[in-house]
């Protein structure tokens, strides 16, 4: 914890806490995304938009430290994230597509477990209160609806403190009311100096957020891909049975 331990003590606004420089992700032979650049300071938010399959989730997995980019650099404060990836990961709250719910554990037990994983003293009770889940505290996971499961994941964000929130499609199964609550939680987190990155294909309100439209980026790359396909097609036109 020595590296980042002083986080809470820094009062003056630092420029560029989380920096992505030329991030490129290649899986197998396919380039998922390339040349992503952004700089986020304390209290700033990034909205990643774009159609399905454009690499939003992969970008979030790279930011969370699960996936190493094939090129480019991700830095937190002054150092590269990959110098001490395990400590960087402990600063991250990640809400992905999977709901992380065990059918036989209660909601309260889930939150308690997650905060113990961080080694923090938990404010599970408060987290339940703020997400409106208090009446479900003793309900086992198997009785929760998809939206309720998502809300438990969101309660995890505030059950222990982490400066970095990476949310992948957080609103998919949420009703309007819960969506509003999530917006409030994000505002609270940012006013406390936290950084939020939200990936979404739907409309999600994020005040004064930077916007990264991965769809626009992909169009340029599409052109070259189209060209490649065309030449391949032309070549295959000439293929006849004789070649067999």
């Amino acid at each position, binding site marked *: 914890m020595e590296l980042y331990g002083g986080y809470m003590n820094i009062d003056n606004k630092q420029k560029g806490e989380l920096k992505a420089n030329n991030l490129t992700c290649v899986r197998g032979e396919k380039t998922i995304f390339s040349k992503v650049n952004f700089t986020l300071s304390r209290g700033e938010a990034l909205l990643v938009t774009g159609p399905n399959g454009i690499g939003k989730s992969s970008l979030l997995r790279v930011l969370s430290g*699960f996936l190493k980019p094939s090129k480019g650099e991700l830095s937190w404060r002054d150092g590269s994230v990959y110098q001490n990836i*395990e*400590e960087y990961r402990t600063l991250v709250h*990640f809400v992905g597509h999977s709901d992380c719910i065990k059918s*036989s554990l209660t909601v309260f037990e889930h939150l308690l477990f997650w905060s*113990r*994983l*961080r080694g923090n003293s938990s404010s599970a009770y408060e987290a339940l209160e703020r997400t409106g889940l208090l009446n479900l505290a003793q309900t086992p996971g198997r009785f929760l609806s998809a939206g309720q499961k998502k809300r438990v994941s969101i309660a995890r964000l505030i059950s222990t403190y982490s400066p970095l929130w990476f949310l992948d499609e957080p609103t998919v199964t949420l009703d309007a009311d819960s969506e509003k609550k999530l917006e409030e939680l994000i505002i609270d987190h940012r006013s406390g100096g936290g950084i939020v990155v939200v990936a979404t294909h739907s409309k999600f309100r994020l005040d004064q957020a930077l916007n990264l439209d991965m769809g626009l980026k992909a169009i340029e790359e599409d052109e070259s891909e189209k060209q490649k396909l065309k030449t391949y097609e032309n070549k295959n036109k000439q293929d006849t049975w004789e070649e067999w």
Partner: protein
Amino acid sequence: MVMKGKNYLSGNNSASFVAIFKRDIRLALRNGIGSFIAVIFFVITVTLFPLAVGPELNLLTRVAPGVLWVCALLSTMLSLDSLFREDFEDGNLEQIVLGVLPLELVVLSKAFAHWVTTGLPLIICAPVLAVLLNMSGKGFIVLILSLLLGTPALSMIGTVGAALTVSLRRGGVLIALLVLPLSVPILIFGVGAVEGAIFGLGERSPLLILAGGFVASLVLAPIASAAALKMAVE
């Protein structure tokens, strides 16, 4: 390795080590009969032997240690499949990776919970089943001792197979193929110790080798499993 000046035994780490262990035990208890399939399998396969081989007592006495050990090995394999897979599929493995506990210790914690829910019940059942197989009275204490050293080693070795196959839908058979060859030494010296006690060849050296195998797996298996899990969450 991953040390990098990190304090492996800090208070935070031990709290989350205990949390993972307790949660796994709790899940096993709430899953009811499903978690104890390994023990039931053990009891059933061992009782099949007298039925198949016939009621000749001398023959049963001769094969008892081997039968008990092979069945213990197979039933441990049977329960390994879900060790990491459930956490992987519902996303909790990602949350565990984001936690403060180094993955090597996560593996150790989960393996310990696995042993408590499968290895320990096996050890409790083993003496009763030994009576069924007409095992000589001289071998009972060594049987328990050898299982006490051997089954945790099997759980540890098993974590490697479970971690490598975590992202496969049907990894069960593959785990057995990966892990069974590695657990042959444990089997040989486990049976060797019990037979040594029964037939007067001495049980001390096989037990010591078994203890060595246990310690080696305790140190090496978490490193290999953690590396495999890191690939799985990519």
